[in-house]
């Protein structure tokens, strides 16, 4: 089991490095077992250095840089063992528009292997979706699902969806 974990870990590590460099357009990252002799018990350390910056440890990363690094790690694992289905809840919330775009292009590349469901408030993410569901609560406390088409002339999230029943 320890052998298998090490093999998986090494694959995830290489994938993380390549996905990170893609998401950050450069820079470098690594993930390490602090105690390689005891792989099944060892804490796992992350190292991430955005392009052009010096390595300062992940605690100094910004909110968006942290989110993008974590996304890189997740998708690195998806490459090791793809999940047929993946649901992400507002992972794009701390991302600026450019990073949201990079995240979405990553999803595009993975969607042949994995069915994605992305919960979001982000307009760019909504525009990229193949299918769009709106959830409404006209009766307080009672959720209802509606199928939605985006109306680019109505930027307000709420009015965007009231047009479709």
């Amino acid at each position, binding site marked *: 089991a320890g052998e298998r974990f090490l093999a998986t870990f090494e694959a*995830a590590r290489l994938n993380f490095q390549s996905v990170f460099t893609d998401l950050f357009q450069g820079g470098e990252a690594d993930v390490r077992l602090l105690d390689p002799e005891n792989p099944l018990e060892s804490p796992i350390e992350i190292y991430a250095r955005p392009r052009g910056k010096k390595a300062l440890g992940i605690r100094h990363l910004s909110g968006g840089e942290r989110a993008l690094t*974590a996304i890189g*790690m997740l998708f690195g694992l998806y490459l090791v063992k793809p999940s047929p*289905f993946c649901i992400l*809840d507002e992972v794009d919330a701390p991302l600026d528009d450019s990073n949201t775009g990079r995240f979405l292009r990553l999803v595009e590349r993975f969607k042949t292997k994995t069915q994605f469901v992305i919960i979001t408030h982000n307009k760019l993410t909504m525009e*990229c*979706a193949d299918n769009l569901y709106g959830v409404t609560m006209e009766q307080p*406390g009672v*959720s209802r699902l509606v199928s939605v088409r985006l109306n680019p002339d109505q930027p307000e999230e709420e009015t965007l969806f009231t047009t479709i029943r």
Partner: protein
Amino acid sequence: MYLKRIDISGFKSFPDPTTVLFDQGVTSVVGPNGCGKTNILDSIRWVLGEQRPRLLRGGRMEEVIFSGTRQRPPLNMAEVTMVIDNHSGRLAVPYSEVAVSRRLFRSGESEYLINKTPCRLKDVYDLLADTGFGSHSYSVIGQGMIDSLLSDNPEDRRFLFEEAA
């Protein structure tokens, strides 16, 4: 193997039977704060066999049953069914479509079914083992989870790597 649909009834803010159909590609779920989007994610975690109420934002499991609103009385049962396409034969059962159901009654009784045949929770786990479908897996990423992946506690991310192994 892919997810075809989820049927939600009596679960959290979905008192009325609701069907969420999933096509191939990327599905985006949108709507105002508090309208029920994360509750859909919770219903998926739950039907996959999540036993920790804390991961469903609850103190006790019965808190997932629709508890009523100011205008509607509570219900006594929550039921969620996940329907999976199995033409790939990846699930070790002789059906091209597999429906996994979970019910919880306010009395505390629980039921699990596979294609309408009652079974145990263990049978659901065994069916989905190793497919990448599982509530503990990295395929369900909840609100706030991204940040915990980079937490100071290196144990917090270990479960993801174990899942992939």
